[in-house]
């Protein structure tokens, strides 16, 4: 009984994490695509990304939408969470490097998030990285349980 309640809460938490990520990525992708020329210029202003402006400017919103789709489809939820985790870690590393080692600090985020300072942005990102990690652990636990029940059901 305790296990069941626990797993119920875990499932709610998992769905909530996925929902947050879908919201974040769809919003982020849309706010980039709606002002695509501006986004491209902002990417170009970052010395680190200047050589790959065209690839990066298209790849980021594309990846964000793709990951949101993966998170919607139950079969690919774990894959989606892993991809989200990786993208968020990369973004956090980028912010950290820009803040500490780069001379120029350009901002390329859109919408409401644009109002965040860089330090707040870093905390925001780390929070999302942790959420993704929690999501992955829960989802993997569920998969394991399903696998065990399936095995017993078969035998």
């Amino acid at each position, binding site marked *: 009984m305790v296990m069941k309640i626990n797993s119920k809460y875990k499932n709610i938490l998992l769905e909530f994490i996925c929902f947050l990520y879908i919201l974040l990525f769809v919003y982020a992708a849309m706010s980039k695509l709606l*002002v695509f*020329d*501006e986004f*491209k*210029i902002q990417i*170009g*202003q*970052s*010395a*680190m*990304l*200047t*050589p790959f*402006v065209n690839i990066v400017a298209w790849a980021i919103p594309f990846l964000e939408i793709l990951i949101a789709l993966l998170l919607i489809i139950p079969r690919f939820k774990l894959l989606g969470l*892993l991809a989200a*985790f*990786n993208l968020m*870690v*990369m973004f956090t*590393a*980028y912010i950290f*490097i820009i803040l500490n*080692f*780069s001379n*120029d600090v350009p901002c390329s985020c859109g919408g409401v998030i644009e109002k965040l300072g860089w330090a707040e942005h870093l905390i925001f990102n780390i929070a999302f990285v942790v959420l993704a*990690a929690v999501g*992955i*652990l829960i989802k*993997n*636990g569920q*998969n*394991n349980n399903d696998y065990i029940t399936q095995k017993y059901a078969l035998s």
Partner: protein
Amino acid sequence: MIQKKLYILLFICTIGSIGFISLLFAFTNKGPERDMSFKRGFLYDAPKKIHELDLEYNGYQIAGAAEGQIYLSNPKSPLYLTVVDTALQSKREVHITMDQDSLPLRSPQLRVIPPYFFLMDGTIPYILRGKTRDWKAHSILNNPLYFSTAQPMDSVTIAIRTTSSKTNEFALGTIRLSDTAKMILSHKLLQKQVDGLFDVDGTLQYSQQRQELIYTYRYRNQYIMADDSLQLQHLGKTIDTISQAQIQVGTIASKNQQKLAKPPLMVNKYSTVSENYLFVNSQLLGKTESIELWKKSSVIDVYDLVKNRYEFSFYVADIEKHKLKTFYVLHDKFIGLVGNHIITYQLDNRFKVAQTIANLPTDRLIKHQNKKTIIYKSQTQKNNTRLPVKHTAVRVKTENL
């Protein structure tokens, strides 16, 4: 997947992602641009830092300096001036009063050229002028003339840079503040290379000594010298070889805005003029210069505006990892703002010309100069004449000979 395996996977993902971004940074971070075509000259007896003062605020700008006083303005509260002496020992505040109740704030610029001071904002626009005797500012611009950067030339003429309505590009000009303020523009001084806005950006200065406007381009190796009637006198070259602005401009159609689409190659970040010398903070590393030193200091190149040639360079050290921001030269003192600090460097004797002594008020002359000045004092007392300071000084000299 087993829990343990999952932890390993997450760990690998984290390391991989961080590693990928770090590698990207390592490959794209080229460090300072090195230009192999020129070599800076550093004096054996280089200018040394003589004073430093923590202002506990990093938003100051140097509004001017004269008679042993440095005037610092704060664009966030332009009516409060901080005044520091050149020895950086004392600090006091000056409150500017106005003939109007409030002042719109967008990008106020303050200039103190005793006996006058100017409070200007070309985006609103307004120009207030007052005397440093009582710090009371009066509005003196009665026509809406817009400008982006300004330097007072005398009490009624302001040198400006503005967007020309004719070309939609930047142009240099002057505003004459008479009953009906008039703007005169020259479309010939700034030479367009890319878009006529970003590529012609630079620092506008006015030399009282030479009665000339000096405009140093930010993205190319040139400075313009023009007289009061905006006639080109000389087109000077800074020591590097970047004659074409290396910038790329992108348009944001939805906002009708233009922005730099990639980091520009900055050549001359900031410059100032003092008497016959131009001081430029260059961003290009020359041949045989140490990268280590470059990373923890800013370089100042000094040009002689009479001979139109490069003289020498010196380094201004960073403070707490902050680089030199803006600077001003008063005779033989180089004054700079570095992070929260104000610093002064001692320049050599060539910057301490006779004329500068003549311009100083009497009491300072007595304090700083030798016997000659004491004679000068007794002379003036005896004759009890009130000749202009400059003339008296010259006369004393000849008598001593």
